[in-house]
């Protein structure tokens, strides 16, 4: 029995001798150092492990190893009735629980043929967009810290805190929301909640300016991000990368517009895109999305203030038994296309429920983006893909 592997130790000869002339054989005839990046590392955003081969500090190859947070969620789905699945979806992308709930509810509603009342649609969209804001704020905080910019972290958490408080007032939870139900919502809004949302959203534009002032034109920030981790639109699509990375590559595609769900067609917002497909543009896209989400939140507030009455749940059957068959529904999660593929056999439990997790698919492009960059850039790139390991490992 040998001791557990410890590749972080300098004297561990893990890879064996390289073939002469191989990729591993560097100019000086020396072997690259193998660097175990994670799973316990400050900037892997969880338990991601990347096995790096570095030549000095330059990355020769990066191999992500995932699964440290695998909880068998898809297996658990099969043992729960449909309403009981929703809390499990919270734990996928745990910083964006609302969009997870939403995607799951959509796919069940699709199989049931349920119509969601307009008011519920607006509230759902409102929750989604607030979730997007909070997720992007968390992203900005951590991406800033990854590059050594410490202060944005506290600025963004100031606002995120307000959003979480609003969530708490809406559904009692701050992170794992469990805020949507099949066919609509569980409870109506608390009186005055919409006004509180508005009071948050209206001055939020100035807050975004504040973050941007710290970073957007900061010379060091630009040095660190421009030209780093380029993944152009064609490669994005080939690798299945969706969400902000795809839009930063100049490809204007967003499920909210492409395959609209809920009341998005009635809302006025734009899909921000930038052309350079690098870390800086991914940052800009997310900043612009913050502004767009704010717009949507305000429009939802307007609608909800004008239409305070109305049902919040469709004609949901008491026992949810969708017709036998299969369906797929997707939402634009903060990280990209989040889809649920549901196979029903007509019982009250899903026969098979598969998640199409954007973090998982986007992470696949990491080796390509990181190759040839420095270790410091790897940190920037992991940050900019915006992964949540709960979703990657499920």
């Amino acid at each position: 029995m040998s001791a557990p592997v410890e590749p972080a130790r300098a004297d561990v000869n893990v890879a064996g001798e390289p073939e002469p002339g191989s990729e591993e054989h560097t100019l000086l005839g020396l072997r690259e150092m193998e660097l175990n990046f994670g799973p316990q590392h400050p900037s892997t955003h969880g338990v991601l492990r990347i096995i790096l081969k570095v030549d000095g500090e330059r990355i020769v190859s990066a191999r992500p190893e995932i699964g440290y947070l695998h909880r068998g969620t898809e297996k658990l789905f099969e043992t729960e009735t449909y309403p009981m699945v929703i809390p499990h979806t919270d734990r996928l992308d745990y910083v964006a629980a609302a969009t997870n709930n939403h995607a799951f509810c959509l796919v069940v509603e699709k199989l049931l043929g349920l119509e969601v009342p307009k008011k519920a649609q607006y509230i759902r969209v409102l929750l989604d967009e607030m979730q997007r804001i909070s997720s992007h704020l968390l992203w900005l905080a951590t991406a800033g810290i990854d590059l050594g910019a410490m202060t944005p972290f506290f600025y963004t958490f100031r606002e995120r805190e307000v959003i979480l408080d609003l969530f708490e007032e809406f559904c009692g939870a701050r992170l794992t929301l469990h805020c949507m139900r099949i066919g609509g919502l569980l409870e109506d809004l608390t009186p005055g909640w919409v006004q509180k949302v508005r009071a948050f959203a209206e001055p939020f534009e100035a807050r975004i300016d504040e973050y941007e002032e710290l970073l957007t034109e900061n010379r060091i920030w630009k040095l660190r991000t421009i030209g780093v981790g380029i993944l152009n639109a064609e490669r994005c699509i080939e690798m299945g990368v969706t969400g902000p990375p795809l839009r930063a590559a100049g490809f204007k595609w967003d499920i909210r517009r492409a395959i609209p769900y809920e009341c998005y067609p009635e809302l006025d917002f734009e899909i921000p895109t930038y052309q350079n497909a690098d870390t800086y543009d991914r940052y800009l896209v997310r900043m612009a999305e913050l502004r767009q989400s704010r717009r949507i939140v305000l429009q939802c507030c307007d609608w909800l203030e004008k239409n305070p009455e109305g049902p919040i749940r469709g004609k949901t059957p008491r026992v949810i038994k969708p017709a036998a068959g299969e369906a797929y529904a997707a939402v634009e999660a903060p990280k990209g296309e989040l889809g649920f593929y549901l196979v029903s056999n007509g019982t009250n439990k899903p026969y098979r429920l598969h998640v199409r997790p954007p973090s998982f698919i986007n992470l696949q492009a990491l080796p390509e983006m990181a190759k040839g960059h420095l270790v410091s850039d790897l940190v920037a790139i992991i940050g900019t893909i915006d992964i949540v390991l709960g979703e990657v490992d499920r």
Partner: protein
Amino acid sequence: MADEAPKPEEKPKVEEKPTEAGAAAAPDTSTPAAPTTAMPAGPAAAPAKPAAAPAKPAAPAAAAVKKGPVPVDASGKPLVAGLAAAVPGSVLSAKEFVGETTVDVETAKILDALRHFKNESFSYLVDLTAVDWKDRQPRFDVVYYLHSFQRGNERIRLKVKVAEGEACPSATAVYETSNWMEREVFDLFGIPFANHPDLRRILTWEGFNGHPLRKDFPVEGIDTGAAIYPDRYPEGGGPAADDPNRRTLS
């Protein structure tokens, strides 16, 4: 199925989502005339209409069923017909259900089918997964879900049947993104993919013994043997002794 039968006037609603979902752009979904064979090959009329276009109810279909959405045969759809023509013998059946077209494809021809669709502008492989039908022969379905940006965000699902122990051709040669998805299916269902560049377990650990998403895998988990074979499995987990990824301190 559903305990409360949706009333007939709700029926159009069922079809609304798909129409929305297809962005009313795919020319073939814009002709709701034919009740059974889904859509005759309509000429490519309008390019992507605004997605917000009001849903067109597929009214006549409502008469056919009392409750829930029903699958309708979709082998007449131009996409399916195109596949059948381009890759003869590939299409086993095709149906449309809640607005999603699903084509059963002959396992041996799946790569040709995927290539065909990729050439037909379905450049984005949305999802690849598998379903375990425990008592069926062949046991597994491998499901591909494709997306076309040019055809107004149209999507199509391909399914192949794979028997236990049998290999499925790897789609990595066509869609690079399928790499990890196939590894996941391999890991959780135990379906090997032929010609996959890097077929290793991805979510469970290297020495894990079993395939959790198979229906016969107990939810409470199994003994992976780590306790029984201490010489094979290192204490505290890690790759098995005969695993090629096993590395030791030199």
